[in-house]
């Protein structure tokens, strides 16, 4: 058990008290004893010296020295007598008790003329013998000093030893009492300090406790203590009450801490989710940024295309007149050649037979040539018209439009366009037109653009197909009139098909699967605009991976009332 501070303090108090008592009583005893013993020894020495002196006057004068030595030896035995020696009338030491010799201090001791100072005087003096101790020398005269003197040395060492022994005894008793007092104090203080110590230990334990594992009021320790009727009991009760409060607070705290921990965890998950979302958004933004860049490029390209369109329109317009001349004059020349043949048949005999024989052949050939000029002139005129149709910048007007012719022109234009770009380009074209499709009310320039775009894609897919390299690329263009006020146009290629993830986005603007720079990503978006928004039609795509892709365009035959004449001008 931890040492009781209370006990220590009581002990220190007792030690101080007893030390003080010991010091005072010892000092007092030493003083008293010293005084008493000194005086006692002095009177003892005086008695001895006097008795030897009284007994030895005759001995000194008449007897052998051994007689007085015998006497002296007897007194030497008395306690406290350090030495005895006898000086005769001549000043010679005739008997002494010293071994191995009379100390110089005593040999030289004063031998007073006793008669001069008054008879029978006892003299006392302190003698310190070097290496031999302290003595009170008591000198008694023999025969008033005439026969010498007797010296008795009372040993101060014995006095000191007596004092020491007395004080030691006293101190021993004191120590005994002290021990008893300490024991009593120990018991009394123990009664007080044990519960205090228990409380302290308990408090320390509580202080050093980690409350992570919870905290309960220590009823088993404090309970018995709290039963006490004294202040310590009150303290224990207060303690117990405090611990109960602390325990409830801590359990509440623990609960809150648990909640906090839970929130923390949730927060982390949320943050993680948000972060991943952000990352996704970032990616999306990145993508958008890229798409924007592409759109920018596309717009730049379309700007270029627009100017090219304007140029093309200008050129076509300029070419159309000379082409009209060529066609008209080829017609005219063909008629003229026919008239010449009639004339020649009529007039053939008049001519040199040799010439007459060749001219019809030449005329035939001329007429064939002119037919060819006419044929190609018409074709060129068709191309120019298409170009004009396609590049016309101003708002198109709804008009009755032959859907079959428009589809054929668009596909042909796409086909030739591809051919113009790549001489190796080769796909088969199957037209399956329903004559019932006929005329619909639409903006032919815009529809042309939409069809051309879809046909372009179809050509590209059919030509670049990979999955079925054995077969040849083929486009199938079909029109149907189901009789519900709509006509349907299907443009199918036998390409690789569109992956699902791409298919979902094919109508998004700026989405393209072509290598950068080859597509604007606007084509199908524009198509969608033109067909769905502008003409209130439907545009859908069917595709089977590795087999085909078919774009289905459904258009109302009559203009849908309320629909915008032109919702969007992409140029």
């Amino acid at each position, binding site marked *: 058990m931890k040492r009781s501070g209370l006990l220590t303090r009581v002990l220190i108090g007792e030690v101080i008290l007893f030390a003080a008592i010991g010091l005072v009583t010892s000092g007092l005893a030493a003083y008293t004893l010293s005084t008493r013993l000194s005086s006692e020894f002095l009177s003892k020495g005086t008695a001895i010296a006097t008795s030897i002196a009284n007994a030895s006057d005759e001995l000194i004068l008449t*007897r*052998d*020295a*051994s007689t007085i030595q*015998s006497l002296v*030896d007897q007194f030497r035995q008395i306690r406290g007598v350090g030495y005895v020696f006898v000086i005769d009338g001549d000043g010679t030491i005739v008997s002494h008790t010293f071994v*191995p010799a009379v100390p110089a201090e005593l040999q030289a001791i004063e031998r007073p003329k006793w008669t001069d100072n008054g008879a029978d005087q006892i003299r006392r003096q302190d003698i310190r013998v070097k290496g031999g101790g302290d003595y009170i020398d008591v000198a008694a005269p023999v025969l008033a000093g005439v026969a010498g003197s007797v010296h008795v040395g009372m040993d101060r060492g014995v006095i000191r030893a007596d004092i020491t022994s007395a004080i030691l005894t006293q101190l021993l008793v004191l120590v005994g009492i002290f021990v008893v007092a300490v024991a009593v104090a120990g018991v009394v203080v123990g009664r007080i300090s044990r519960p205090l110590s228990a409380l302290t230990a308990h408090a320390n334990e509580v202080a050093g406790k980690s409350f992570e594992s919870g905290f309960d009021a220590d009823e088993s320790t404090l309970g018995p203590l709290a039963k006490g009727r004294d202040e310590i009991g009150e303290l224990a009760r207060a303690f117990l009450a405090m611990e109960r409060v602390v325990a409830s607070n801590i359990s509440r705290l623990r609960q809150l801490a648990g909640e906090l921990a839970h929130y923390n965890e949730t927060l982390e998950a949320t943050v993680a989710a948000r972060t991943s979302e952000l990352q996704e958004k970032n990616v999306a933004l990145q993508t958008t940024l890229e798409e924007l860049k592409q759109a920018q490029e596309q717009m730049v390209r379309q700007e270029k295309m627009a100017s090219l369109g304007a140029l093309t329109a200008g050129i076509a317009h300029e070419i159309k007149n000379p082409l009209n001349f060529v066609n008209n004059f080829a017609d005219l020349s063909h008629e003229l050649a026919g008239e010449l043949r009639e004339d020649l048949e009529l007039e053939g005999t008049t001519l040199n037979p040799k010439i007459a024989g060749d001219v019809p052949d030449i005329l035939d050939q001329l007429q064939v040539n002119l037919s060819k000029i006419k044929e190609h002139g018409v074709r060129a005129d068709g191309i120019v018209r298409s170009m004009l149709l396609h590049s016309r910048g101003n708002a198109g007007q709804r008009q009755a439009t032959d859907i079959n012719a428009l589809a054929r022109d668009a596909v042909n234009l796409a086909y030739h366009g591809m051919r113009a770009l790549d001489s190796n380009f080769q796909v088969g074209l199957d037209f399956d037109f329903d004559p019932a499709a006929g005329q619909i009310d639409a903006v032919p320039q815009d529809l042309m653009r939409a069809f051309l775009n879809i046909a372009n894609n179809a050509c590209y897919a059919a030509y670049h197909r990979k999955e079925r390299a054995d077969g040849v690329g083929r486009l199938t263009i079909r029109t149907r009139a189901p009789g519900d006020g709509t006509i349907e146009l299907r443009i199918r290629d036998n390409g690789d098909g569109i992956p699902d993830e791409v298919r979902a986005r094919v109508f998004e603007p700026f989405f393209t699967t072509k290598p950068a720079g080859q597509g604007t990503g606007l084509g199908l978006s524009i198509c969608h605009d033109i067909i769905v928004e502008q003409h209130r039609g439907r545009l859908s795509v069917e595709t089977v991976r590795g087999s085909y892709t078919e774009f289905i365009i459904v258009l109302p035959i009559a203009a849908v009332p309320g629909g915008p004449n032109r919702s969007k001008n992409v140029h």
Partner: protein
Amino acid sequence: MTTWPRRTRLAAPLTILTGLALLAGPPVRAAIAPEPIVLAMSAAFSGPSRGLGIELYRGSLAYFAEVNAQGGVSGRPIVVKTYDDGYNPAPAIYNTIKAVEQDRAFLLFNYVGTPTVTRVLPLLKRYASRSMYLFFPFTGAQPQREPPYDGEVFNLRASYRDETYALVDHFAAVGRKKIAILYQADAYGRSGWDGIRRALKAHQLTLAAEATYARGTPYETHLTEQVEILRRAEPDAVIAIGAYAACAAFVRDAVNAGWKIPIANVSFVGSQNMLNLLVAEERSAKRDYTSMLVNSQVVPSYEDQTLPAVVEYRTLMQRHAPKAPAVADLTDYPLLDLNYVGFEGFLNAKVIVEVLRRMKGDFDPARIKSVVESIHDLDVGINAPISFGPNRHQALQYVYFAGVERGRWVPVVDWERWAK
């Protein structure tokens, strides 16, 4: 010496049987059992001076055994009742009281030591009405030779004064006039000190230096301090008034200090015990510790076989092989063969037996004094007549000297050896 232990062992059972017979005797043969004459002997039988008591006793016993073997004195055996006082005054007093009051001693005999005897003397005054006398104490001190106690004591041996006078005279004669003294710090030492001072005074000399040692100092104690004190005065000779253990220690330490000086001891020292210690020291230290020794003796040399008493002593010692008394502490104490102390005890016994014989069967203590004082020119075989008288309780005054040759005490005939 080599034959002694065996004889001692053979003799031991006999002595025990004798002792038992004596103890068991009176009740059985009450009518005819002679009452023994009890001589009380308080002496040092333990402690550093025990050799004195033991050997003095054994010397006496050699003679008593012979007397008892021949029927005792007037048909009564002589018994020496021994008491150990360890050479200390207080036990000597108690022993004496016990001997007189309880053990009904006929007389006190062979006491050893000055400090003990000087304290016993007043008791004799107390027991004067019972005619209690002390015979032949083994001490040369003055108190028992002077009033008021000389009446109760009979001394056979010469006094320390005699011994110290003789030593000082001889040293002075060979030019050694600066005499230092080592003495036991008690009445014995003081007695010798006093004797030497007086002897020096006769030569108009004073003590060169003096040092003391405490009674009971064992041989193991170093007396180098005393050696230094005396050596500082650069004396010509040292006279030691002490017991054998301390005196041997002093000689040892003086020699070890490289101090070559004649060292004299008086009879009380116990010359043989001292020599044994120093011879043992010589053997282990390979040094000469004995050649400078000169001891004064109060009996003739036991080596002088021209003397009938010496022959008798030797014969009876061999015949009776006396053992130590039961009270003696014999730890590490080998009994001696012939020696001065034992010879003195033998002579003491001879004289006391003569005294007892002269009682002629009437052992009334009151008669003792007159019987002793009637002895004149008694020849005990030492070529020295023994005489007592009413004013003469001191029989002998002869002093002999002994030096060491080849590990034995031999009489000193030529003092020139010690010439300065």
